[in-house]
């Protein structure tokens, strides 16, 4: 039935467009051609594989010949260490100073619930503690005092046993 209906539809011939349509399109295309010639079109981005390959080869050659070593040297290690001295080193640098006290102020303690750490036999309770620690030193000779204060965070795992 569908085929019969389709055949009936195909027997219908669409009306031919007017004869001048083609000439109108021809004129429009000619105008478009003139206009199109004036348009400056940017070149499409294309990867220049030859240039890219040569560039990579040159970079590889440079690295091999110059033997560029990106590992930190002893010199740079020393510089890095000296740039961020620890408190102990600071204290060691001040031989006359003697530690006089350490204050720990706990201002937050949060129980984060049960966790199952790798390798542990059972579950643990994780407690996160936020503190502020203050170290104090005193110069034996001059009596001058030095205090360093900084925030710390401590995570404690407390094993839980089932009953």
């Amino acid at each position, binding site marked *: *039935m*569908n085929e*019969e*209906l*389709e055949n*009936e*539809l*195909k*027997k*219908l*011939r*669409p*009306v*031919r*467009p*007017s004869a001048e*349509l*083609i000439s*109108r*399109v*021809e004129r*429009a*295309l000619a105008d*478009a*051609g003139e206009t*199109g010639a004036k348009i400056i079109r940017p070149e499409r981005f294309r990867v220049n594989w030859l240039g890219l390959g040569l560039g990579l080869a040159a970079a590889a050659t440079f690295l091999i010949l110059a033997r560029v070593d990106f590992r930190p040297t002893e010199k740079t290690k020393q510089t890095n260490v000296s740039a961020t001295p620890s408190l102990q080193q600071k204290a060691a640098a001040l031989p006359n100073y003697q530690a006089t006290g350490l204050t720990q102020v706990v201002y937050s303690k949060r129980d984060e619930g049960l966790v199952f750490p790798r390798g542990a036999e059972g579950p643990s309770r994780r407690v996160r503690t936020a503190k502020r620690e203050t170290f104090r030193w005193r110069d034996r000779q001059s009596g001058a005092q030095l205090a360093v204060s900084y925030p710390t965070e401590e995570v404690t795992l407390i094993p839980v046993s089932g009953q």
Partner: protein
Amino acid sequence: MENVATHEDWKVCFSELAPGLVLFARQWVRSPADAEDVVQDAFVRFWRRNLSIKNRALLYAAVRSAALDLIRRDNRRARREVEVFGEAERSVQPQFEQLDDSQRQLVAALDHLPRDQREVLVMKIWNELTFAEIGEALGVSQNTAASRYRYGLAALKKTFQPQ
């Protein structure tokens, strides 16, 4: 995408496609003159973009887009097109050649189809597009295009009995 047709043979391509394209455009604009304007506009734009004439889905999408642009540009005309969706103009300006009584009945049934079904029928029957191409032109899936075609034929069957 390079244009496979040269400037010399565009006339051949256009002459073959023009009746179907104008019929397709007339699904939105009832006046044959407007339909020809739409086809001219779409074809010239399509050609200027150097698209392949083999990519028929894009060409029909361009015609559809140009027709909708025309309707949007002229709301008054669009209202008039909707109001007189057919009677006077359809009888004076038939879409098909040399109709007998049975064919007139068929065309009347076709005109009463919902637009989404009618445009699929027009593209399939008189322009010989595949459902994939129709789907691409209309921005719907291939299955949706096929469903609209089936529904269209089913609706035609209800109102038209081949003699």
